[in-house]
């Protein structure tokens, strides 16, 4: 089959590789119809995630048709059309039983490696380094799905791939970010980063009752989408002298009740601390650049909540703990417990309350995945979200 493989920093290629096979009784094989490039895939592309190996197949946002099931998978039939959550979860451990699916105890074959770094292991994740299990990902024609009796959800035929694909990650991730923000009636929510997760966080914040959402980014096309699609007020942090003051001005001096960080370890900053982080990260003295997180903490109102959806993988420097502590902030964060949100968010899509396809700017054949990575990373052509089609029938119309 064809699969997008990682060969090193800035080097991903579509290779011909063997087809996946059933390896465990609870596995299924899915023939992929749509797969997306996630902002977190760029951390791999840019070489910021450790434990990548030459030849790893990437991709954790994918859906398709079940073509084979293992002997212990009884809820799926060959031919079922499914979306596949990006975390791999057994459904039986302490964490799965408490709906903390991305913290599953039993799905990471390299748990010992994760314990070294994090103290405990997280769940396995498709196509996301050996730290999270070294599982082959879904930017491919086929994928093996472990614990297929627990993860994949059947989707109705009446909905297009483009409408349900993002249930695999970014829609639940934006939703959980908003849920973690503890939104109360009348609240103002600031969303740092208007990539795809930020866009879903904006819509989710309104759906969860926010009065106002302030979207912060530096790319005009992303701010435009936040305003036009999400209905957010926007702030371009590169166009103001002091972003903290600008946010205070917009909120009558209070600061936002909740701040959602949807950027993660490769944040950019315009100030001196942005330069500091860039230097430290380049010198490998700091693994993650927490610029947006710092601003979120600094601007959040007293007693407010900081919700972190952007991915962090290692260590950060100069976190304003004094501000966090003295303002009595609450922090919530983590990899998304996707399984928990599949059904309720599918309901919202079916009810017409949201059509997730609005984030797609680029629909491409899987063969052109390497180009997709480049234009997404470099924000060329106003790229916000790339969806890849293994079975490309040119030229398909955008949803």
């Amino acid at each position: 089959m064809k699969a997008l493989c990682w060969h090193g920093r800035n080097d991903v290629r579509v290779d011909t590789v063997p087809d996946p096979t059933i390896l465990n009784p609870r596995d299924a094989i899915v023939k992929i119809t749509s797969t997306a490039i996630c902002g977190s895939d760029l951390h791999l592309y840019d070489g910021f995630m450790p434990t990548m190996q030459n030849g790893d197949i990437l991709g954790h946002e994918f859906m398709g048709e079940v073509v084979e099931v293992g002997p212990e998978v009884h809820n799926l039939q060959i031919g079922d059309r499914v979306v596949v959550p990006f975390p791999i979860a057994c459904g039986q451990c302490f964490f799965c039983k408490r709906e903390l699916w991305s913290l599953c105890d039993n799905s990471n074959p390299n748990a010992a490696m994760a314990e070294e770094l994090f103290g405990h292991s997280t769940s396995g994740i498709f196509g996301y380094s050996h730290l999270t299990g070294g599982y082959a990902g879904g930017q491919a024609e086929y994928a093996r799905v472990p614990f297929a009796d627990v993860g994949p959800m059947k989707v109705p035929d009446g909905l297009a791939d483009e409408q349900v694909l993002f249930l695999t990650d970014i829609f639940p991730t934006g939703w959980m970010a908003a849920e973690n923000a503890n939104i109360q009636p009348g609240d103002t929510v600031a969303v740092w980063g208007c990539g795809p997760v930020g866009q879903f966080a904006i819509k989710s914040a309104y759906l969860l009752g926010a009065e106002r959402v302030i979207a912060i980014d530096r790319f005009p096309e992303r701010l435009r989408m936040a305003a036009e699609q999400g209905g957010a007020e926007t702030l371009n942090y590169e166009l103001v002298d002091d972003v903290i003051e600008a946010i205070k001005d917009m909120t009558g001096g209070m600061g936002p009740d909740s701040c959602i960080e949807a950027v993660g370890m490769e944040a950019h900053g315009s100030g001196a601390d942005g330069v500091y982080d860039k230097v430290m990260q380049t010198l490998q003295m700091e693994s993650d650049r927490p610029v947006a997180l710092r601003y979120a903490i600094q601007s959040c109102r007293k007693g407010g909540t900081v919700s972190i959806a952007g991915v962090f993988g290692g260590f950060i420097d100069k976190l304003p703990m004094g501000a966090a502590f003295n303002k009595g902030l609450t922090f919530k964060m983590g990899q998304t417990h996707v399984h928990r949100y599949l059904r309720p968010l599918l309901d919202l899509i079916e009810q017409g309350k949201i059509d997730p396809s609005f984030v797609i700017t680029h629909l491409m054949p899987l063969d052109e995945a390497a180009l997709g990575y480049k234009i997404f990373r470099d924000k060329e052509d106003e790229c916000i979200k790339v969806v890849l089609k293994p079975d490309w029938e040119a030229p398909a119309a955008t949803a």
Partner: protein
Amino acid sequence: MADNSDDRPDKPKASKGSHIVVERSMTINRPLSEVYSFWRDFENLPRFMNHLQSVTTTGDGRSHWVLKTPLPIPLEWDAELTQEKENELIAWRSLPDSTIENRGSVRFRELPYDRGTEVKVTFAYDPPGGIIGEKFAQLANGVTAATIEEDIRHLKQILEAGEIPTNDGQPRGGQ
């Protein structure tokens, strides 16, 4: 957790550097009696202990253990139960004059509020005289403290998830 393990008769003595001694606690989200019964049937051990070829129970608390090894000569020994308290403790040791001395114990504790069972496993090998741990690892197909710790994790995975997660055998790109 309170534990008086230091004066346990079954505690392996980690005096020589050649010993492989593993002590590991694990919480298994299954009922106490199920976890206990699974371990009490020593023939289940090779299902999660990758370095064991087989364990055969021969009645009266005795068992015959065979290691996986790349050698033509099998590495095997007989063991006997030294302690057994239902749903609390199992301990065993190899019979005197075995080629490889193996000892171990498992303590079981039921956790409140359906939190499953805590197991505390001690597992020790004393390789044959004069053989150091590294050499033993070669003889015994790479057995080290780390691989035995991983085996104990496999116990949890089998009892909870019914299988051991793997990426072994999946496709990857040209190198």
